[in-house]
Protein backbone atom coordinates (compact mmCIF):
# COMPACT_ATOMS: atom_id res chain seq x y z
CA UNK A 1 0.00 0.00 0.00
CA UNK A 2 2.79 2.42 0.91
CA UNK A 3 6.29 2.01 -0.38
CA UNK A 4 9.11 4.31 0.64
CA UNK A 5 12.18 4.00 -1.57
CA UNK A 6 15.56 5.34 -0.58
CA UNK A 7 14.01 8.43 0.97
CA UNK A 8 16.39 11.23 1.85
CA UNK A 9 15.54 14.52 3.48
CA UNK A 10 17.82 17.44 4.13
CA UNK A 11 17.15 20.71 5.90
CA UNK A 12 19.88 22.93 4.55
CA UNK A 13 23.04 20.97 5.22
CA UNK A 14 21.47 18.88 7.98
CA UNK A 15 20.56 15.39 6.78
CA UNK A 16 17.52 14.15 8.66
CA UNK A 17 16.65 11.01 6.70
CA UNK A 18 19.48 9.05 5.13
CA UNK A 19 17.85 6.69 2.68
CA UNK A 20 14.79 5.07 4.23
CA UNK A 21 13.21 1.98 2.66
CA UNK A 22 9.87 0.87 3.98
CA UNK A 23 6.93 -1.13 2.77
CA UNK A 24 3.56 -1.12 4.50
CA UNK A 25 0.84 -3.56 3.50
CA UNK A 26 -2.88 -3.22 3.98
CA UNK A 27 -3.99 -4.03 7.52
CA UNK A 28 -0.56 -3.61 9.05
CA UNK A 29 0.07 -1.54 12.14
CA UNK A 30 3.63 -0.35 11.79
CA UNK A 31 5.08 1.43 14.79
CA UNK A 32 8.19 3.56 14.51
CA UNK A 33 10.19 4.04 17.70
CA UNK A 34 13.46 5.76 18.40
CA UNK A 35 15.05 8.61 20.30
CA UNK A 36 13.78 12.11 19.63
CA UNK A 37 15.38 13.87 16.70
CA UNK A 38 15.98 10.61 14.84
CA UNK A 39 13.69 11.55 11.96
CA UNK A 40 10.56 9.55 12.86
CA UNK A 41 8.19 12.47 12.54
CA UNK A 42 9.92 13.76 9.43
CA UNK A 43 9.46 10.35 7.81
CA UNK A 44 5.75 10.43 8.59
CA UNK A 45 5.44 13.97 7.26
CA UNK A 46 7.24 13.01 4.06
CA UNK A 47 4.84 10.10 3.58
CA UNK A 48 1.84 12.42 3.34
CA UNK A 49 3.74 15.15 1.54
CA UNK A 50 3.62 17.87 4.20
CA UNK A 51 7.41 17.82 3.92
CA UNK A 52 8.93 17.70 0.48
CA UNK A 53 11.46 14.89 0.07
CA UNK A 54 14.99 15.74 -1.02
CA UNK A 55 15.34 12.53 -3.01
CA UNK A 56 13.76 9.10 -3.16
CA UNK A 57 10.16 8.11 -3.61
CA UNK A 58 6.98 7.64 -1.67
CA UNK A 59 4.49 5.44 -3.50
CA UNK A 60 0.93 5.31 -2.18
CA UNK A 61 -1.53 2.97 -3.90
CA UNK A 62 0.69 2.91 -7.02
CA UNK A 63 0.99 6.69 -7.19
CA UNK A 64 4.21 8.60 -6.65
CA UNK A 65 3.07 11.35 -4.30
CA UNK A 66 5.85 13.70 -5.37
CA UNK A 67 4.98 13.48 -9.04
CA UNK A 68 3.63 16.94 -9.92
CA UNK A 69 0.98 15.29 -12.09
CA UNK A 70 -0.46 13.45 -9.11
CA UNK A 71 -3.07 15.39 -7.16
CA UNK A 72 -1.59 15.33 -3.67
CA UNK A 73 -4.88 16.52 -2.17
CA UNK A 74 -6.72 13.46 -3.53
CA UNK A 75 -4.06 11.26 -1.96
CA UNK A 76 -4.32 13.01 1.39
CA UNK A 77 -8.07 12.39 1.45
CA UNK A 78 -7.21 8.71 1.77
CA UNK A 79 -4.35 9.24 4.21
CA UNK A 80 -5.49 10.44 7.62
CA UNK A 81 -3.00 12.20 9.86
CA UNK A 82 -3.12 12.80 13.60
CA UNK A 83 -0.73 15.32 15.11
CA UNK A 84 0.99 15.61 18.45
CA UNK A 85 -0.58 19.03 19.00
CA UNK A 86 -4.07 17.88 17.84
CA UNK A 87 -4.42 20.89 15.50
CA UNK A 88 -8.16 21.12 15.85
CA UNK A 89 -9.57 24.28 14.26
CA UNK A 90 -10.27 26.54 17.26
CA UNK A 91 -12.82 28.73 15.46
CA UNK A 92 -15.09 25.77 14.65
CA UNK A 93 -17.20 23.60 16.90
CA UNK A 94 -16.43 19.92 17.36
CA UNK A 95 -18.98 18.96 14.73
CA UNK A 96 -17.81 21.63 12.29
CA UNK A 97 -14.24 20.41 12.74
CA UNK A 98 -15.26 16.92 11.72
CA UNK A 99 -17.54 17.77 8.79
CA UNK A 100 -15.47 20.62 7.28
CA UNK A 101 -13.39 18.55 4.87
CA UNK A 102 -16.05 16.11 3.57
CA UNK A 103 -18.48 18.98 2.96
CA UNK A 104 -16.03 21.44 1.39
CA UNK A 105 -14.56 18.69 -0.78
CA UNK A 106 -18.10 17.71 -1.79
CA UNK A 107 -17.58 14.12 -0.73
CA UNK A 108 -20.74 14.09 1.35
CA UNK A 109 -23.93 16.09 1.61
CA UNK A 110 -24.29 18.26 4.67
CA UNK A 111 -26.89 15.91 6.16
CA UNK A 112 -24.82 12.79 5.58
CA UNK A 113 -21.71 14.43 7.01
CA UNK A 114 -23.55 15.59 10.12
CA UNK A 115 -25.03 12.15 10.60
CA UNK A 116 -21.67 10.48 10.15
CA UNK A 117 -20.06 12.97 12.55
CA UNK A 118 -22.59 12.10 15.24
CA UNK A 119 -21.95 8.39 14.69
CA UNK A 120 -18.23 8.93 15.08
CA UNK A 121 -18.73 11.06 18.19
CA UNK A 122 -20.89 8.29 19.61
CA UNK A 123 -18.11 5.83 18.85
CA UNK A 124 -15.51 7.89 20.69
CA UNK A 125 -17.97 8.65 23.47
CA UNK A 126 -18.03 12.41 23.00
CA UNK A 127 -21.50 12.93 21.59
CA UNK A 128 -22.30 15.48 24.31
CA UNK A 129 -19.46 17.74 23.11
CA UNK A 130 -20.83 18.12 19.59
CA UNK A 131 -21.43 21.88 19.77
CA UNK A 132 -18.50 22.82 21.96
CA UNK A 133 -15.37 24.59 20.86
CA UNK A 134 -11.96 22.87 21.13
CA UNK A 135 -10.86 25.30 23.86
CA UNK A 136 -13.53 23.82 26.11
CA UNK A 137 -12.13 20.29 25.84
CA UNK A 138 -9.33 18.37 27.53
CA UNK A 139 -6.28 17.22 25.59
CA UNK A 140 -7.48 13.64 25.42
CA UNK A 141 -10.88 14.71 24.12
CA UNK A 142 -9.25 16.96 21.53
CA UNK A 143 -7.07 14.15 20.27
CA UNK A 144 -9.98 11.73 20.00
CA UNK A 145 -11.88 14.34 18.01
CA UNK A 146 -8.85 14.87 15.80
CA UNK A 147 -8.92 11.12 15.13
CA UNK A 148 -12.64 11.28 14.34
CA UNK A 149 -11.96 14.17 11.98
CA UNK A 150 -9.57 11.95 10.04
CA UNK A 151 -11.85 8.92 10.18
CA UNK A 152 -14.79 10.68 8.53
CA UNK A 153 -12.74 10.74 5.33
CA UNK A 154 -12.71 6.91 5.32
CA UNK A 155 -8.93 6.85 4.99
CA UNK A 156 -7.10 3.79 3.70
CA UNK A 157 -4.26 4.49 6.08
CA UNK A 158 -3.86 6.53 9.26
CA UNK A 159 -0.62 8.23 10.22
CA UNK A 160 -0.13 9.06 13.89
CA UNK A 161 2.62 11.48 14.84
CA UNK A 162 3.22 11.03 18.59
CA UNK A 163 -0.50 11.29 19.31
CA UNK A 164 -0.14 10.89 23.08
CA UNK A 165 3.05 12.84 23.70
CA UNK A 166 1.34 16.14 24.46
CA UNK A 167 -1.21 14.61 26.81
CA UNK A 168 -1.37 14.55 30.58
CA UNK A 169 -0.55 11.01 31.80
CA UNK A 170 -4.12 10.23 32.85
CA UNK A 171 -5.40 11.02 29.35
CA UNK A 172 -2.98 8.82 27.46
CA UNK A 173 -5.14 5.73 27.87
CA UNK A 174 -8.33 7.13 26.35
CA UNK A 175 -6.45 8.01 23.14
CA UNK A 176 -4.33 4.88 23.21
CA UNK A 177 -7.42 2.69 23.64
CA UNK A 178 -9.14 4.32 20.69
CA UNK A 179 -6.06 3.62 18.58
CA UNK A 180 -6.01 0.03 19.76
CA UNK A 181 -9.64 -0.36 18.70
CA UNK A 182 -8.79 1.02 15.27
CA UNK A 183 -5.84 -1.33 14.90
CA UNK A 184 -7.93 -4.30 15.90
CA UNK A 185 -10.56 -3.39 13.34
CA UNK A 186 -7.86 -3.78 10.72
CA UNK A 187 -7.10 -0.14 9.99
CA UNK A 188 -3.74 0.27 8.28
CA UNK A 189 -1.66 2.44 10.57
CA UNK A 190 1.78 3.96 10.77
CA UNK A 191 2.38 5.19 14.28
CA UNK A 192 5.23 7.17 15.77
CA UNK A 193 4.92 6.80 19.50
CA UNK A 194 6.64 6.33 22.85
CA UNK A 195 3.58 4.61 24.27
CA UNK A 196 4.92 1.09 24.72
CA UNK A 197 1.66 -0.52 25.82
CA UNK A 198 0.22 0.36 22.45
CA UNK A 199 3.30 -0.95 20.66
CA UNK A 200 3.25 -4.28 22.44
CA UNK A 201 -0.46 -4.80 22.02
CA UNK A 202 -1.03 -3.68 18.46
CA UNK A 203 2.12 -3.41 16.39
CA UNK A 204 2.38 -5.97 13.61
CA UNK A 205 5.83 -4.63 12.96
CA UNK A 206 8.17 -2.38 14.91
CA UNK A 207 10.79 -0.18 13.31
CA UNK A 208 13.64 1.26 15.31
CA UNK A 209 15.14 4.40 13.85
CA UNK A 210 18.17 6.33 14.86
CA UNK A 211 19.94 9.26 13.29
CA UNK A 212 17.99 9.16 10.05
CA UNK A 213 18.39 5.42 9.49
CA UNK A 214 16.29 2.36 10.15
CA UNK A 215 18.50 0.34 12.51
CA UNK A 216 16.28 -2.62 13.21
CA UNK A 217 12.92 -3.92 12.11
CA UNK A 218 10.85 -6.85 13.29
CA UNK A 219 7.84 -8.15 15.21
CA UNK A 220 7.16 -6.98 18.74
CA UNK A 221 8.71 -10.17 20.01
CA UNK A 222 11.86 -9.81 17.96
CA UNK A 223 12.38 -6.19 18.88
CA UNK A 224 11.60 -6.35 22.56
CA UNK A 225 12.83 -9.80 23.47
CA UNK A 226 15.69 -10.26 21.12
CA UNK A 227 17.14 -6.90 20.12
CA UNK A 228 20.22 -7.30 17.97
CA UNK A 229 21.90 -3.92 17.94
CA UNK A 230 23.45 -2.37 21.01
CA UNK A 231 21.73 0.91 20.26
CA UNK A 232 18.28 -0.68 20.40
CA UNK A 233 19.16 -2.51 23.64
CA UNK A 234 20.21 0.79 25.15
CA UNK A 235 17.05 2.52 23.94
CA UNK A 236 14.76 -0.19 25.28
CA UNK A 237 16.48 -0.18 28.66
CA UNK A 238 15.65 3.50 28.93
CA UNK A 239 12.01 3.45 27.87
CA UNK A 240 10.98 0.42 29.92
Amino acid at each position, binding site marked *: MITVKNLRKKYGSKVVLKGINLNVEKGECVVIIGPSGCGKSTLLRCING*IEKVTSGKVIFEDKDINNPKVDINKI*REKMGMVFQQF*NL*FPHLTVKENIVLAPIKLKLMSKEDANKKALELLELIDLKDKVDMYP*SQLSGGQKQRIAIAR*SLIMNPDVMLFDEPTSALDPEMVDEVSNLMKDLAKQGMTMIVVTHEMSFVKECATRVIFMENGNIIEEGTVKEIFENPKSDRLKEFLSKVK
Partner: protein
Amino acid sequence: MEVLFNVWGEIVKFFQSIWDNFYQTIIYDNRYLYILEGLFNTLIIALFAVIIGIVIGVLIALIRNNYDRNNKFKLLNKISTLYVNIIRGTPQILQLMIIYYIIFKSVDINIVIVGIIAFGINSGAYVSEIIRAGIESIDNGQIEAGYSLGLNYSKVMRYIILPQAIKNILPALGNEFITLLKDTSVGAYIGIVELTKASDIIASRTYDYFFPLIIVAIIYLILTIGLSKLISMMERKLSNDYC
Protein backbone atom coordinates in the same frame (compact mmCIF):
# COMPACT_ATOMS: atom_id res chain seq x y z
CA MET B 1 -29.94 96.13 40.90
CA GLU B 2 -28.57 98.07 38.03
CA VAL B 3 -25.33 96.09 38.20
CA LEU B 4 -27.21 92.82 38.10
CA PHE B 5 -29.18 94.06 35.17
CA ASN B 6 -25.98 94.97 33.39
CA VAL B 7 -24.49 91.54 34.01
CA TRP B 8 -27.63 89.90 32.70
CA GLY B 9 -27.48 92.15 29.70
CA GLU B 10 -23.89 91.15 29.07
CA ILE B 11 -24.73 87.46 29.30
CA VAL B 12 -27.60 87.86 26.88
CA LYS B 13 -25.36 89.82 24.56
CA PHE B 14 -22.69 87.15 24.75
CA PHE B 15 -25.04 84.35 23.77
CA GLN B 16 -26.65 86.60 21.20
CA SER B 17 -23.29 87.14 19.56
CA ILE B 18 -22.52 83.41 19.60
CA TRP B 19 -25.87 82.72 18.02
CA ASP B 20 -25.30 85.41 15.43
CA ASN B 21 -21.96 83.96 14.69
CA PHE B 22 -23.41 80.47 14.38
CA TYR B 23 -26.25 81.76 12.22
CA GLN B 24 -23.90 83.66 9.93
CA THR B 25 -21.47 80.81 9.41
CA ILE B 26 -23.74 77.79 9.40
CA ILE B 27 -27.36 78.62 8.69
CA TYR B 28 -27.38 81.80 6.61
CA ASP B 29 -27.40 81.16 2.88
CA ASN B 30 -27.88 77.43 3.62
CA ARG B 31 -24.18 77.08 4.40
CA TYR B 32 -24.79 73.90 6.40
CA LEU B 33 -25.47 72.24 3.06
CA TYR B 34 -21.71 72.33 2.44
CA ILE B 35 -21.19 70.38 5.62
CA LEU B 36 -23.84 67.85 4.63
CA GLU B 37 -22.29 67.47 1.21
CA GLY B 38 -18.86 67.13 2.81
CA LEU B 39 -20.13 64.53 5.25
CA PHE B 40 -21.75 62.57 2.44
CA ASN B 41 -18.58 62.62 0.33
CA THR B 42 -16.34 61.72 3.26
CA LEU B 43 -18.55 58.74 4.09
CA ILE B 44 -18.84 57.60 0.47
CA ILE B 45 -15.10 57.84 -0.13
CA ALA B 46 -14.23 56.11 3.15
CA LEU B 47 -16.78 53.33 2.63
CA PHE B 48 -15.83 52.42 -0.92
CA ALA B 49 -12.11 52.91 -0.27
CA VAL B 50 -12.36 50.47 2.63
CA ILE B 51 -14.05 47.93 0.35
CA ILE B 52 -11.42 48.38 -2.36
CA GLY B 53 -8.72 48.28 0.30
CA ILE B 54 -9.97 44.98 1.72
CA VAL B 55 -10.28 43.38 -1.72
CA ILE B 56 -6.79 44.49 -2.79
CA GLY B 57 -5.40 43.71 0.66
CA VAL B 58 -6.69 40.13 0.78
CA LEU B 59 -5.58 39.49 -2.79
CA ILE B 60 -2.05 40.82 -2.27
CA ALA B 61 -1.69 39.08 1.08
CA LEU B 62 -2.69 35.74 -0.47
CA ILE B 63 -0.40 36.19 -3.47
CA ARG B 64 2.55 36.99 -1.24
CA ASN B 65 1.78 34.26 1.28
CA ASN B 66 1.32 31.72 -1.52
CA TYR B 67 4.68 32.75 -2.92
CA ASP B 68 6.41 32.53 0.46
CA ARG B 69 4.89 29.13 1.16
CA ASN B 70 4.58 27.37 -2.19
CA ASN B 71 6.84 29.42 -4.44
CA LYS B 72 3.93 30.13 -6.75
CA PHE B 73 2.97 33.40 -8.51
CA LYS B 74 6.55 34.63 -8.83
CA LEU B 75 5.74 37.54 -11.14
CA LEU B 76 2.56 38.53 -9.30
CA ASN B 77 4.52 38.47 -6.05
CA LYS B 78 7.12 40.84 -7.52
CA ILE B 79 4.40 43.21 -8.70
CA SER B 80 2.66 43.04 -5.32
CA THR B 81 5.85 43.79 -3.42
CA LEU B 82 6.58 46.70 -5.72
CA TYR B 83 3.06 48.05 -5.23
CA VAL B 84 3.29 47.85 -1.45
CA ASN B 85 6.70 49.51 -1.46
CA ILE B 86 5.61 52.34 -3.72
CA ILE B 87 2.43 53.05 -1.77
CA ARG B 88 4.12 52.90 1.60
CA GLY B 89 7.12 54.85 0.41
CA THR B 90 5.42 57.94 -1.02
CA PRO B 91 3.17 60.53 0.62
CA GLN B 92 -0.51 59.88 0.20
CA ILE B 93 -1.15 63.43 -0.96
CA LEU B 94 1.35 62.89 -3.76
CA GLN B 95 -0.35 59.65 -4.81
CA LEU B 96 -3.67 61.47 -4.92
CA MET B 97 -2.21 64.23 -7.07
CA ILE B 98 -0.51 61.78 -9.42
CA ILE B 99 -3.75 59.87 -9.89
CA TYR B 100 -5.78 63.03 -10.44
CA TYR B 101 -3.39 65.28 -12.38
CA ILE B 102 -1.52 62.63 -14.36
CA ILE B 103 -3.47 59.39 -14.69
CA PHE B 104 -6.94 60.91 -15.01
CA LYS B 105 -5.66 64.11 -16.64
CA SER B 106 -7.61 63.85 -19.85
CA VAL B 107 -10.48 61.77 -18.52
CA ASP B 108 -13.76 63.35 -17.53
CA ILE B 109 -14.36 61.65 -14.21
CA ASN B 110 -16.17 62.56 -11.02
CA ILE B 111 -13.57 63.76 -8.54
CA VAL B 112 -15.16 61.74 -5.72
CA ILE B 113 -14.51 58.59 -7.74
CA VAL B 114 -10.89 59.67 -8.14
CA GLY B 115 -10.76 59.97 -4.37
CA ILE B 116 -12.29 56.51 -3.88
CA ILE B 117 -9.74 54.97 -6.25
CA ALA B 118 -6.76 56.78 -4.76
CA PHE B 119 -7.68 56.07 -1.14
CA GLY B 120 -8.64 52.48 -1.95
CA ILE B 121 -5.32 51.80 -3.64
CA ASN B 122 -3.49 53.40 -0.76
CA SER B 123 -5.40 51.48 1.88
CA GLY B 124 -4.93 48.17 0.03
CA ALA B 125 -1.18 48.26 0.59
CA TYR B 126 -1.53 48.74 4.33
CA VAL B 127 -4.38 46.25 4.67
CA SER B 128 -2.37 43.64 2.77
CA GLU B 129 0.47 43.93 5.25
CA ILE B 130 -1.93 43.62 8.17
CA ILE B 131 -3.59 40.54 6.68
CA ARG B 132 -0.23 38.99 5.80
CA ALA B 133 0.87 39.39 9.40
CA GLY B 134 -2.45 37.89 10.50
CA ILE B 135 -1.99 34.83 8.29
CA GLU B 136 1.52 34.34 9.60
CA SER B 137 0.30 34.60 13.18
CA ILE B 138 -1.66 31.36 12.79
CA ASP B 139 0.13 28.21 13.90
CA ASN B 140 1.56 26.19 11.04
CA GLY B 141 -0.15 23.10 12.45
CA GLN B 142 -3.48 24.55 11.33
CA ILE B 143 -2.36 24.61 7.72
CA GLU B 144 -0.88 21.14 8.00
CA ALA B 145 -4.08 19.78 9.53
CA GLY B 146 -6.06 21.32 6.67
CA TYR B 147 -3.73 19.84 4.06
CA SER B 148 -3.81 16.44 5.74
CA LEU B 149 -7.58 16.35 5.24
CA GLY B 150 -7.16 16.82 1.49
CA LEU B 151 -8.02 20.52 1.39
CA ASN B 152 -5.99 22.58 -1.07
CA TYR B 153 -4.26 25.88 -0.35
CA SER B 154 -7.19 28.12 -1.20
CA LYS B 155 -9.68 26.07 0.85
CA VAL B 156 -7.28 25.95 3.79
CA MET B 157 -6.91 29.72 3.61
CA ARG B 158 -10.60 30.40 3.18
CA TYR B 159 -12.07 28.08 5.78
CA ILE B 160 -9.28 27.67 8.32
CA ILE B 161 -6.63 30.39 8.25
CA LEU B 162 -8.40 33.62 7.26
CA PRO B 163 -11.28 33.29 9.75
CA GLN B 164 -8.73 32.94 12.56
CA ALA B 165 -6.42 35.60 11.14
CA ILE B 166 -9.22 38.17 10.86
CA LYS B 167 -9.97 37.74 14.53
CA ASN B 168 -6.35 38.41 15.46
CA ILE B 169 -5.97 41.47 13.25
CA LEU B 170 -9.32 43.13 13.89
CA PRO B 171 -7.81 45.82 16.16
CA ALA B 172 -5.15 46.66 13.57
CA LEU B 173 -7.73 46.69 10.79
CA GLY B 174 -9.96 48.98 12.84
CA ASN B 175 -7.05 51.32 13.32
CA GLU B 176 -6.44 51.35 9.58
CA PHE B 177 -10.08 52.16 8.82
CA ILE B 178 -10.15 55.01 11.32
CA THR B 179 -6.97 56.41 9.79
CA LEU B 180 -8.51 56.09 6.34
CA LEU B 181 -11.66 57.92 7.41
CA LYS B 182 -9.61 60.84 8.71
CA ASP B 183 -7.19 60.78 5.80
CA THR B 184 -9.99 61.42 3.32
CA SER B 185 -9.45 65.05 4.38
CA VAL B 186 -6.37 64.99 2.16
CA GLY B 187 -8.87 64.94 -0.72
CA ALA B 188 -9.44 68.64 -0.07
CA TYR B 189 -6.10 69.22 -1.72
CA ILE B 190 -7.40 68.28 -5.16
CA GLY B 191 -10.72 69.97 -4.50
CA ILE B 192 -12.95 67.17 -3.29
CA VAL B 193 -15.65 68.74 -1.16
CA GLU B 194 -15.37 66.47 1.84
CA LEU B 195 -15.81 67.53 5.46
CA THR B 196 -12.60 69.46 5.88
CA LYS B 197 -12.94 71.23 2.54
CA ALA B 198 -16.56 72.06 3.39
CA SER B 199 -15.54 73.84 6.55
CA ASP B 200 -12.82 75.65 4.65
CA ILE B 201 -15.30 76.83 2.00
CA ILE B 202 -17.64 78.24 4.65
CA ALA B 203 -14.82 79.88 6.54
CA SER B 204 -13.50 81.53 3.41
CA ARG B 205 -16.92 83.13 2.89
CA THR B 206 -17.31 84.46 6.42
CA TYR B 207 -13.69 84.76 7.53
CA ASP B 208 -14.84 83.16 10.73
CA TYR B 209 -13.23 79.79 11.34
CA PHE B 210 -14.64 78.94 14.75
CA PHE B 211 -17.89 77.14 14.05
CA PRO B 212 -17.01 75.52 10.73
CA LEU B 213 -13.83 73.96 12.12
CA ILE B 214 -15.26 72.98 15.51
CA ILE B 215 -18.42 71.47 14.06
CA VAL B 216 -16.49 69.44 11.52
CA ALA B 217 -14.06 68.28 14.21
CA ILE B 218 -17.01 67.08 16.28
CA ILE B 219 -18.44 65.23 13.27
CA TYR B 220 -15.10 63.46 12.69
CA LEU B 221 -15.00 62.52 16.35
CA ILE B 222 -18.51 61.09 16.28
CA LEU B 223 -17.67 59.06 13.16
CA THR B 224 -14.39 57.65 14.47
CA ILE B 225 -15.72 56.91 17.95
CA GLY B 226 -18.71 55.18 16.37
CA LEU B 227 -16.41 53.18 14.12
CA SER B 228 -14.18 52.06 16.98
CA LYS B 229 -17.27 51.06 19.00
CA LEU B 230 -18.45 49.01 16.05
CA ILE B 231 -15.09 47.28 15.77
CA SER B 232 -14.84 46.48 19.46
CA MET B 233 -18.36 45.04 19.23
CA MET B 234 -17.19 42.76 16.44
CA GLU B 235 -14.11 41.82 18.46
CA ARG B 236 -16.25 40.89 21.41
CA LYS B 237 -18.59 38.86 19.25
CA LEU B 238 -15.74 36.91 17.71
CA SER B 239 -14.02 36.27 21.02
CA ASN B 240 -17.28 35.01 22.53
CA ASP B 241 -17.39 32.31 19.91
CA TYR B 242 -14.23 30.60 21.09
CA CYS B 243 -11.18 30.93 23.31
